[in-house]
């Protein structure tokens, strides 16, 4: 029987003992053990263990500070050198990777800057999580409509009734007003708010006490910028008076620092709401809305529970008179990103675009990573010998993985620098497109994030080649066999398909977005928006007499074709009422009709078409009790043969004199809605005038002179209706421009990848091409041979991408009530475009390969 010493003891000995002693010691110990074994096994075992332990002393313990450290460094230098040589040797791959990865990274960084800016809008408020805006869901026949306007008495009532409320104030929306100091006249954006405004919102007060600044009815708090404009200084401004709208004096009680650009509410002064309330009796009723109510809840209040309590608040307050309005609070900062409601449910808003662009950023980065993966695995065949030899002389797989990862890491860090440069250069242009004020500042978070993204990119891009290349079997590789397995080829092709599918998706998106914008701009609005200017009736012009004079005088200016006045700005919902009654009306129906108060000639000035009946006319004395509906309104009421019929508006009889054809007073996102027009010149707020084409400049200066004469002290602020109309589609325009750039980039990067692959394939098959040519193949045949493979790949990409892009396009267009019809050719065009680009890319390589002289490539070997 053979005796074996205790295994663990031997293991332990071998682990700690120096290499030059271990054999001797182990041998001697074993010999003694064998001698003792005959006498007593247990004793022998025990003694062996004890003896081993006695060797655990400095003389025999090996140095565990092995020379690994220096080895790592050497390996690192070695890898670095190899990478560098590879870059030099394969310049085209290197450039393709550099361009691809750096543009991908730059794209991602730009989008990150934009997204992070979007996400921080309004978040700078100290009490952000306790700040809310009251909103209302209103039930209408066509569904629930959600509005940010609330009744005037709400704020005060909430503070009195609900202990959870710390402060609640009523405030107006920022708007332009005229301020003046002596003969200095300034138009400034301002708003009016309750006295606790500065206690709720952390706008920084440079001068004044937050508790006091709005306590007095005639006080006003101005921004430091406005103070400098008015007084050229911010010193000793508090206590001075300024003229407001040339009608009253306001005393400056404080100065606040201008809010950061990422605040959704931008204003230069805040007046006391008491001042605004003066003479505006409608603000006292629960039935009217038009201002906003801002609420600061006490710490620890659960807003959902609070909302449940106040849901029927308006019903209770009006003693069951108004039953269709549900009150709720919404986070003040949330409104910017989550501002869209559909039938009472929150359905996105700007957050949709934030998400969309984040996804785009990731996809573009992925495409760039795929390039790197594809090129390196394709190039693998050139490096298999290197891998084989390294493995044969004992390189562990780990070391090889490390080598390829460090190579891709180096690549991605190089790209990072180029990307930074690109971001730096393109940021100002990007700001113009997105309408932002992004700055490229590197704080700690951003540095971490950028480094993180870069490392991630390096890992993703390098992972596949690293794992793939290091997995070769050295024996087969050195024998010269490298069988590209079916799955591996599929993987590479799959990646190209993915790239092209995304590119095609981008192309379709660009096409659809542009077509829709073109449609929006060219579609018939039901009136003519071109060459139409409008300006508000402020100051002296709010007097009906002066207004009449203004209109009469304007008509005499040669460039003016037509002029009138209205309350409506034609670019959005201005105000409505459910106070229209008609025979057969359902008493529960709260549908609001859009209200347009007009002067004579407005319908003609705007160029609306009458469907039936007539427009308001001075020839009839009875038009002050007349009413005109749009077609939608007539359809809604279900009136047949409407002319001459009588409906009630706010309880008064009105006879219908005409039906105007449906027109768009809101953006094309919205469907037609019922509208009525009544003749009330004293309730119009703005003059609209059509100007003869080509005479805009002199006509406007004539109007301005007239305006200055009739309304001294106010500056003439006018707008062209079509410009304002365009601004309704600001988001869409931005998406259009951005998606154009992104599509371009995606295609560029994909093509770079394809170019690299094609070049590689051509090189690998050079001998085959040579033999084919010797055997009589034509150049065209070879081009066909080489591009056929890629054609198939791109074709598969097209097949995959088109259905997806159809769904995406449909989804985007759903937002519009009026939209272009998706036509087959958009998709065909995108597909053909992608195919053409791919052919062009591959073709260049294929032709070059096909024209090779067969003797050249067959000569050596």
């Amino acid at each position, binding site marked *: 029987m053979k005796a074996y010493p205790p295994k663990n003891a031997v293991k332990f000995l071998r682990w700690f003992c120096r290499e030059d002693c271990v054999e*001797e*010691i*182990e041998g*001697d110990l*074993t010999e003694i053990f064998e001698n003792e074994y005959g006498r007593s096994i247990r004793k022998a075992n025990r003694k062996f263990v004890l*003896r081993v332990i*006695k*060797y655990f002393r400095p003389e025999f313990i090996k140095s565990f500070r092995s020379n690994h450290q220096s080895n790592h460094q050497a390996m690192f230098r070695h890898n670095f050198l190899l990478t560098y040589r590879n870059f030099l040797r394969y310049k085209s791959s290197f450039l393709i990777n550099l361009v691809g990865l750096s543009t991908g990274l730059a794209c991602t960084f730009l989008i990150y800057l934009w997204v992070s800016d979007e996400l921080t809008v309004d978040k700078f408020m100290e009490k952000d999580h306790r700040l809310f805006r009251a909103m209302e869901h209103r039930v209408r026949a066509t569904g629930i409509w959600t509005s940010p306007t609330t009744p005037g008495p709400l704020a005060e009532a909430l503070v009195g009734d609900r202990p959870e409320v710390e402060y609640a104030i009523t405030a107006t929306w920022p708007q332009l007003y005229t301020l003046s100091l002596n003969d200095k006249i300034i138009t400034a954006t301002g708003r009016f708010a309750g006295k606790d405004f500065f206690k709720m919102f952390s706008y920084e007060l440079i001068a004044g006490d937050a508790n006091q600044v709005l306590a007095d009815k005639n006080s006003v708090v101005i921004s430091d910028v406005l103070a400098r404009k008015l007084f050229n200084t911010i010193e000793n401004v508090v206590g001075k008076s300024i003229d407001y709208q040339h009608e009253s004096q306001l005393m400056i009680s404080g100065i606040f620092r201008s809010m950061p650009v990422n605040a959704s509410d931008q204003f230069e002064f805040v007046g006391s709401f008491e001042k605004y309330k003066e003479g505006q009796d409608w603000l006292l009723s629960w039935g009217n809305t038009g201002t906003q109510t801002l609420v600061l809840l006490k710490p620890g209040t659960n807003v959902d529970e609070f909302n449940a309590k106040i849901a029927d608040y308006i019903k209770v307050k009006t003693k069951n008179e108004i039953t269709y309005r549900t009150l709720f609070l919404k986070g003040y900062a949330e409104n910017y990103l989550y501002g869209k409601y559909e039938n009472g449910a929150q359905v996105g808003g700007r957050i949709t675009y934030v998400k969309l662009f984040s996804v785009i950023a990731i996809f573009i980065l992925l495409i760039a990573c795929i390039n790197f993966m594809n090129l390196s695995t394709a190039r693998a065949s050139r490096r298999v010998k290197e891998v084989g030899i390294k493995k044969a002389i004992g390189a562990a797989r780990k070391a090889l993985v490390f080598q390829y990862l460090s190579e891709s890491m180096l690549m991605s860090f190089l790209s990072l620098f180029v990307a930074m440069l690109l971001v730096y250069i393109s940021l100002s242009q990007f700001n113009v497109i997105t309408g932002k004020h992004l700055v490229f500042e590197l704080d700690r978070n951003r540095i971490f994030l950028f480094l993180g993204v870069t490392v991630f990119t390096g890992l993703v891009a390098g992972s596949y080649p690293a794992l793939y290349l290091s997995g070769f079997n050295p024996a087969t590789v050195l024998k010269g066999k490298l069988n590209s397995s079916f799955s591996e080829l599929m993987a590479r092709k799959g990646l190209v398909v993915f790239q092209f599918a995304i590119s095609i998706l981008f192309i379709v998106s660009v096409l659809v977005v542009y077509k829709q914008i073109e449609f929006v701009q060219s579609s018939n609005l039901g009136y003519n928006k071109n060459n139409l200017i409008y300006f508000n009736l402020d100051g002296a012009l709010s007097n009906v007499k002066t207004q009449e004079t203004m209109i009469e005088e304007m008509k005499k200016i040669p460039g003016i074709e037509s002029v009138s006045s209205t309350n409506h700005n034609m670019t959005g919902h201005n105000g409505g009422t459910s106070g229209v009654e008609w025979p057969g009306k359902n008493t529960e129906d709260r549908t609001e009709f859009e209200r347009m108060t007009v002067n004579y000639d407005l319908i003609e000035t705007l160029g609306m078409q009458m469907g039936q009946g007539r427009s308001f006319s001075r020839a009839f004395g009875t038009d002050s009790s007349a009413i005109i509906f749009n077609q939608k309104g007539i359809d809604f009421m279900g009136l047949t043969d409407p002319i001459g019929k009588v409906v009630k508006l706010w309880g008064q009889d009105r006879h219908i004199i005409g039906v105007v054809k449906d027109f768009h007073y809101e953006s094309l996102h919205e469907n037609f809605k019922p509208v009525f027009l009544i003749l009330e010149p004293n309730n119009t707020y703005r003059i609209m005038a059509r100007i003869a084409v080509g005479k805009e400049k002199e006509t406007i200066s004539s109007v301005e002179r007239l305006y200055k004469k009739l309304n001294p002290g106010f500056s003439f602020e006018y707008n062209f209706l079509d410009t304002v109309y365009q601004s309704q589609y600001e988001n869409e325009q931005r998406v259009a421009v951005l998606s154009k750039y992104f599509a371009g980039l995606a295609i560029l990067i994909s093509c770079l990848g394809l170019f690299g692959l094609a070049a590689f394939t051509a090189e690998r098959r050079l001998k085959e091409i040579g033999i084919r040519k010797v055997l009589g193949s034509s150049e065209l045949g070879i081009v066909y041979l080489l591009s056929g493979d890629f054609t198939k790949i791109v074709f598969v990409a097209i097949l995959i991408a088109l259905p997806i892009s159809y769904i995406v396009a449909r989804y985007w267009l759903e937002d519009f009530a009026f939209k272009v019809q998706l036509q087959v050719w958009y998709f065909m065009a995108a597909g053909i475009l992608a195919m053409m680009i791919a052919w062009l890319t591959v073709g260049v390589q294929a032709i070059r390969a096909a024209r090779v002289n067969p003797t050249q490539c067959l000569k050596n070997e």
Partner: protein
Amino acid sequence: MIQHTLGEFEELVLLMVAALHDEAYGVIILEGLEEKLKKKINISAVHVALKRLSDKGFLKSRYGGITTDRGGRRKKYYSITALGKKMLDNQYSLRTSIYKQIPKISFG
């Protein structure tokens, strides 16, 4: 030059190696010493002494062949170097010369 010294146990081990002449390896040395000293000695003590003696240049070593004994581990044979021999000679003559100086008278 560093003047190396010999500890008592080291001297014994060195003597034993010299005595065993070319056949000395760990276990044999241990057994020889145990027999002469009539007491149990720890093998690790022998190895420490061997290592130190080698470091001081008094011993040189070589590996024997692989056998089936000892778990297939080779024996490490030690033999004394010229320096080691000189050291032993020095020690011996030093001790003898002092020994000779002991006056006979002392023991009556």
